C-alpha cells in the first residue's frame, strides 16, 4: 500500500509541476496571451506609458504573497495542516484588490466617458 501511495504522490507531483511549467513557459514565450494585462482602459493611464499603477500594485502583492506562502510551505512543512499566514496579510491583499476594483469601477461608472456623458446631460437639462 505504501508503494501505491508513493506512486500516486509522484503522479500528482509530476502533473502539477508539468502544468505549472507549461503555463509559465507559454506565458514567457507569448503563446498564452498577456497583452494589455497591466494597461488601464482609460486615457489617463497613457501618461504612464499605458501602465496602470492600480494593476501593478495588485500584481506585485499577489506575486509577493504567493511566493511567501510557497516558501512557508516548502521550508516549514507542517504535517496535517496548511501553514498560517499573518493576520495582516488578508487586510493587505483585500486593500490591494479594493484599490484595483475601485479604480476599475471608477473608470467604468464615473470615469472619463461616464463623466463626460453626465456633464453633457446636465448641460442639456440646463438648456
Amino acid at each position: 500500500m505504501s508503494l501505491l501511495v508513493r506512486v500516486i504522490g509522484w503522479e500528482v507531483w509530476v502533473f502539477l509541476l508539468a502544468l505549472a511549467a507549461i503555463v509559465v513557459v507559454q506565458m514567457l514565450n507569448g503563446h498564452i496571451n498577456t497583452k494589455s494585462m497591466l494597461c488601464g482602459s482609460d486615457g489617463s493611464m497613457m501618461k504612464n506609458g499605458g501602465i496602470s499603477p492600480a494593476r501593478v500594485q495588485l500584481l506585485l502583492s499577489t506575486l509577493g504573497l504567493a511566493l511567501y506562502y510557497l516558501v512557508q510551505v516548502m521550508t516549514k512543512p507542517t504535517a496535517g495542516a496548511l501553514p498560517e499566514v499573518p493576520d495582516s496579510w488578508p487586510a493587505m491583499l483585500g486593500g490591494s484588490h479594493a484599490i484595483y476594483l475601485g479604480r476599475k469601477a471608477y473608470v467604468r461608472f464615473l470615469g472619463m466617458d461616464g463623466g463626460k456623458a453626465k456633464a453633457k446631460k446636465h448641460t442639456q437639462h440646463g438648456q
Partner: protein
Amino acid sequence: MTQKYLDYLMLVSGWILCIFIGLLGAVIIWKIFTGDIDLTQLISEPTGDASLSRFQFLIFTFVIALSLFLVIAAATPPHFPDIPGTVLTLLGISGSSYLVSKGIQYSDPSGTVNPAASDVVISPTQALVRYGQARQFGATVPRKPNSTVKWTVIAGGGTIDDKGLYTAPAAPAGVDPPPLQHATIQVTSDEYPDAHDLAVVTLS
C-alpha cells in the same frame, strides 16, 4: 477471510485509480503539447486583452494546489489537512475580487466584445497588382496565432497558393492599355471555419 478479500479489493481499486489518474494526467499534458487543449486564451477576456483578475486567480489556484499536495504528502498516513481561516479568507478575497471585476466589466456591453477583433484577419485588404505579377498576402488568427489558413480566389481571375502568394492573370491580348479588373481573395481559418476575411485586388 472477509477482511483479506476487502484488503485485496482495496489494493486492486487503489492501483486502478492510480493508473487512471496517471493516464488522465498524461493525456492532459500531451494534449496541451499537441495544441488540442488550447491555453492561449487562458487569462484572456472576450476583448482579446489579458485579464489581471484571471491571472491572480490562476496564481492562487496553483499555489494552493501545490501547497495542499505538499502538506498531504508530508502526513503519515496521507490525509486532507486543516485549512487555516486566514488562508480561506485569502482565497475568498481572490475569488470574490474576480467575480466583482467580471461584474464591472460585463455591466458595459463594450467590455464583452471587441468590434475590431476577428477570428482571422487578412493583410492587406486592398492591393493594386499588374497583370502577370504576383503579390504576397498574409493572414493572422488572433485567437490562435500559429494556426493554418486556407486561401482561395472567390471572384475574378488569378490564382493563389497555400502560402498566400497571389498571381494575377495575364493581361487580355489586343487591348492596350489593359482594362481595370478586380479579384477577391478569401482567407478561411482552419481552426474557425465559419470565420473568414476578404481582400480586393485591382488588376491593372
